């Protein structure tokens, strides 16, 4: 299989590789895929709770070059967006940007899933924090 220049570029120079503190209340973590399927993506966002803007995004991916490129691109796009805007990122945009062939579309789907999972995790943490704060106020 030949890869697009953009996939190769992300593979050779992946953006935002790494991990954020998954216990931090303003960090959302998405872990999607399965080792048996040959793809696992971990995508994390760090959100400013005041502004709801994603200040940092990191990823680690086990998978083919297209999976690595898809998640690398996703972290690039996430930074500076609001949480709501993050949810608007569609896998088809990733396919278009990276020129993914049909057989690699699932990599982009996984990246979209990872974004959604990370946002969900963040929102859940926020609602738990609010509940705890409410409980503290009511006590």
């Amino acid at each position, binding site marked *: 299989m030949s890869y697009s220049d953009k996939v190769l570029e992300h593979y050779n120079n992946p953006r935002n*590789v790494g991990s954020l503190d998954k216990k931090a209340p303003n960090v959302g973590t998405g872990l999607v895929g399965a080792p048996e399927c040959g793809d696992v993506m971990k995508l994390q966002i760090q959100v400013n709770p005041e502004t709801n803007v994603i200040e940092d995004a990191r990823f680690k991916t086990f998978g083919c070059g297209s999976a690595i490129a898809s998640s690398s691109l996703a972290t690039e796009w996430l930074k500076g967006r609001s949480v709501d805007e993050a949810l608007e990122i569609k896998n088809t945009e990733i396919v278009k940007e990276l020129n993914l062939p049909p057989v690699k579309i699932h990599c982009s789907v996984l990246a979209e899933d990872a974004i959604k999972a990370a946002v969900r995790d963040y929102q859940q943490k926020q609602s738990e924090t609010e509940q705890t704060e409410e409980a503290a106020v009511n006590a």
Partner: protein
Amino acid sequence: MSVKLPIYMDNHATTPCDPRVFEAMAPYFTEIFGNAASRNHEFGWKGEEAVENARKQVADLIGASAKEIVFTSGATESDNLAVKGVAEMYYERGDHIITVVTEHKAILDTCKKLEKRGFKVTYLPVGSDGLISPDDVKNAITDKTILVSVMHVNNEIGVIQPIAEIGKVCKERGIIFHTDATQGVGKLPFNVNEFNVDLVSISAHKIYGPKGAGALYVRRKNPRVQLTSQMDGGGHERGMRSGTLNVTGIVGLGKACEIAKTDLQEETERLLRLREKLRKGIMDEIPDVYINGHATHRVPGNLNISFAYVEGESLLMGINDIAVSSGSACTSASLEPSYVLKALGVGEELAHSSIRFGLGRFNTEEEVDYTIGRVNEAVNRLRELSPLWEMVQEGVDLSKVQWAGE
């Protein structure tokens, strides 16, 4: 010494034509072009002479007589002719065939087609080392069994099946025994009588000959094996395979066999040394690397290993100046990881992480050194990128994780 890139280390897929083979073939493209079946002029006689010389060269490599060699277009055709040819010739005697789950598709798909036509096929499972035992064959034989087909050397993991012992079992029971020896003949000592084999598939391009040429050994004595032809026409090759002989390709196959026979010992020792250097250079440096298939019952040029927590296709990208192949689903058209590795019980995660190195005649020690460096660098880089590697370092048991994608 600098290494010329890219490096070819996929010699199970195909091999380059040896210059000596190419040289032997050259005159048969232009000067000696006669049809070997033209019996009435010198052009034909010269073609026939070349074919008969090659037939002897092929026979000599496997301890057969020249009359037992049928030329084909390659091992896939040889496999088809052997399995379908026996099934159609002996169907009145029985309808049962025994083979192995890790065979090449040329055998498996042929057997599946025969099943549709009413034959019964037993697909023997392999152990975690990729091998079957002769007892497995013995126990699977019924009074309806007409053919046993077990490959000599596996094309993915390089393991060597106990052909001589299986041959003995088949001989005792009077059952025809075929072996697809595409990856074995020319690389390991092979003798049709010592191994008690009745049919042997051979390919030229796996032993430094040209593509499009192959042979099927068909035993003529004890027992005399008969085959129903699959290609009908002018009655070439004693009626077993019609079609004008590919004289040039056959000359190449013959020469390739002759060289393989002469160089076998030396080449085996050299490839074994290179293979072990490659294995140690990687496995001594990198943790969590696993050999697929038996560690020593393996053809000298083969090293098939899985790099846990790193996906195979991404690793191929990381070593893109070295041509190897992977059992990863991503590298196959079917999006399924290697069925051979699955049959060994290798977990799908490790099947996705497998790389097959195929060393051959023209690989050098410098190339092996270069490969070790590149592989280790790429694996380390990709593990830094791998969430699985990170989880394992944190002490997470991956088998206990509930994966979202499952």
